[in-house]
């Protein structure tokens, strides 16, 4: 009986160890979500004000879209990475960066339509 309870304890400990890191990550999801929503709102307000300084990013995105339309996926990738590089020192434009990342991932999957859609969305946030 004593042996069984020890074994049971061991199993519970193993279970806790396995599930704890995942629960820790998911636990802070809700709190982060609220912050993220307010960040997105803030981002869209700020992009309107600084649209002039974002021309180089828009050009890179446009170049990427044109490359996709011409069937040059590698060229599109380079253009999108250039846009990402230009976004590095602009943490307030994180949603734009995420759209470009999505475009790159879609390109990697061979889904050119999704790549163009995400690139257009990124551009919309900058104009």
């Amino acid at each position, binding site marked *: 009986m004593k042996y069984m309870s020890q074994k049971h304890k061991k*199993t519970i400990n*193993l*279970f806790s160890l*396995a*599930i704890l*890191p*995942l*629960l820790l*990550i*998911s636990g*802070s*999801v*809700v709190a*982060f*979500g*609220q912050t*993220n*929503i307010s960040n*997105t709102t803030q981002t869209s307000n700020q992009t309107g004000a600084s649209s002039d300084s974002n021309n180089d990013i828009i050009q890179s995105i446009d170049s990427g879209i044109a490359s996709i339309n011409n069937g040059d996926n590698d060229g599109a*990738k380079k253009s999108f*990475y*250039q846009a*990402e*590089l230009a976004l*590095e020192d602009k943490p307030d434009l*994180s*949603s734009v960066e*995420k*759209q470009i*990342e*999505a*475009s*790159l*991932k*879609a390109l*990697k*999957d061979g889904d050119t339509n*999704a790549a163009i859609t*995400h690139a257009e*969305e990124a551009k919309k946030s900058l104009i």
Partner: protein
Amino acid sequence: MNVTNLIIFVLFGLLGLISILYFVVAYGEYTDWMELLEFGITSETTEKIVEIMLFLISGIIYIGLIIWILKVRTSQKIPYVICISISAVLIFIYIASRTVGVPIVGTEFYIGRLDWISKIVQVLIIGLSGLVLYKISKHVPTQNKTFLSKS
């Protein structure tokens, strides 16, 4: 071969598939990270490391579950409970990452082919693990030892 054994074998296959999928996704994130570094983009290093670690740990946990289930078969319920819990938590994290966002990573916009395949596999893992738990609970404890030999 009885129904429970068949379910467990299918579950093995799905657990193997999901661990491979997680390793493939982790490798994909690694190559993305290397490409970003090639272009001099360093701001995403933490995000990429967290993602790679999460995918690698998930793949390893699923392999651990295969070994555990192979050893205990139907004599323990815990590995099946963990299968359900881990899969549910990973689905939850994925949904959060596509909606409200998750810490460090933020909100992702792209839903790829591997994403939905892995989520379907995880839903199947939850269903089959639940079914095995149901089958185990239907058998009285004294029958557990001979449960597999009946096949």
